[in-house]
């Protein structure tokens, strides 16, 4: 087994035993179960889960990423005095942090769905929810780790993480909406699609909404989006964008980690 996987294994158990992972599992499990229990349809369950996934999951992930790295500083020091590469340690930590989070999110939604829900007509939508949620966890955990590696001051790292979360979940939409109002006389579909790619939360929201009938409410713009995501090119582009959103912070964090003093 490579050093990366060995480190990942022990980090996995450590992270799995934190309260955070349990909170993610419990939240999604009880929410999904409760929604089904009160007789909501699959579509409504999905919309409720969508909002929790888009707002709460990024916040928890980015904070945990920052916290975890700061709390591990002296452990990182000890590990780096062993004959291992820095990239092996970073990769191992990343894998060990990410897997329990993704696992508890997916299981938290999947278990109640298997009991109460029906795949009929909703497999694609739930599949998209899993992909979007997983991508958001990966993106925001990687961003959190990256901030903690860059900012040696804990408060700076935390502030950056919170600021980014606020920008991507709230401020960004407000700005886009404002610009769309200002330039309403111009054809905005393409700039809006571009704007969406620059924010993984938006990308996730649109990808998911399009799986549901509510996209009919989005009028002409919805139709444009639907057309865009209906093509395999659109879906591939969206997946590539999410992949970039994961790999850039991982890469930048690793680069800094490899050269930083401890």
């Amino acid at each position, binding site marked *: *087994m490579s*050093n990366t996987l*060995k*480190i990942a294994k*022990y*980090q996995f*158990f*450590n*992270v*799995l*035993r*934190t309260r955070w992972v349990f909170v993610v599992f419990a939240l999604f499990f009880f929410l999904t179960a409760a929604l089904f229990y009160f007789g909501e349809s699959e579509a409504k369950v999905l919309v409720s889960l969508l909002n929790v996934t888009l707002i709460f999951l990024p916040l928890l992930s980015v904070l945990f990423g920052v916290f975890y790295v700061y*709390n*591990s*500083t*002296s*452990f990182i*020091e*000890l*590990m*780096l*005095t*062993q*004959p*291992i*590469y820095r990239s092996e340690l970073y990769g191992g930590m990343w894998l060990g942090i990410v897997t329990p989070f993704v696992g508890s999110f997916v299981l938290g939604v999947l278990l109640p769905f298997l009991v109460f829900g029906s795949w009929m007509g909703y497999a694609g939508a739930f599949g998209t929810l899993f992909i979007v949620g997983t991508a958001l966890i990966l993106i925001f955990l990687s961003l959190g780790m990256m901030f903690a590696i860059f900012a040696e001051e804990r408060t700076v790292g935390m502030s950056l993480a919170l600021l980014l979360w606020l920008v991507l979940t709230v401020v960004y939409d407000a700005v886009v909406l404002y610009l769309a109002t200002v330039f309403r006389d111009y054809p905005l579909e393409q700039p809006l699609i571009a704007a969406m790619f620059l924010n993984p939360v938006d990308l996730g929201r649109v990808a998911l909404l399009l799986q549901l009938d509510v996209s009919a409410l989005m009028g002409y713009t919805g139709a444009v989006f639907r057309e865009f995501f209906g093509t395999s090119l659109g879906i591939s582009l969206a997946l590539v964008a999410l992949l970039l959103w994961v790999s850039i912070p991982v890469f930048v964090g690793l680069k800094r980690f490899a*050269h930083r*003093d*401890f």
Partner: protein
Amino acid sequence: MIQFRNISKRYGQLQVLKDVTVSIEAGRITAILGPNGSGKTTLLKCLLGLVHPDAGEILLVDHRINAHPEYRQRIGYMPQIAQFPEHLTVGEIIRMMKDIRSDVTHYDEELFERFHLDRELTKKSKELSGGTRQKLNAYLAFLFQPQIYVLDEPTVGLDPVASLILKEKIRKEKQQGKTIIFTSHILPEIAALADDVIFLLDGKLLFKEAKQVLIDRTETKNLEEAIAEVLQYSGVEE
């Protein structure tokens, strides 16, 4: 064994190490001392690859250390403070370290027994007292039988008995021909253990001398007086 050549390191405004050139001989115990913030830990961290010096090079048995981590197989490090993953048990932490050092098959379990770490195996690391954590830390530094031990304030936080056991262990390793470097503030401890003394002041090397040579040269009775004498002559007040 180890040669530091013209090592300089700056953190922002603060020049932590200034052109430090010093060598550490094989088979001896070398103590690094100096006031707080004199660069002791930073010098050790340069050797361990944790800190990248701005200038200078470090030779380990005539090979320049670089980004390849293999050279660290020869070094056992005991940091000042050790924190382990909070939710892992002592047993898991030991297994993790052994897994990562799969190049080693013969372990030195002496400190495990003498520190009675078997009683702690199922405890989570966050439940350990500071002293026990430090014992685990010391045990891990000796576990893989390296040629060189780098110990950063090894006895701080240990109870007197554990501290005695560790000092005995250090002497025993020296008899086996191992090279030991440690930092300390405690002069009697340095006097009792060290063969050579490196004194750092404000990031500069003030002197490096064999303990006995230092005492003879300053015509004093013991290390404490010798160091006081040297500091007086170099116009330094602590």
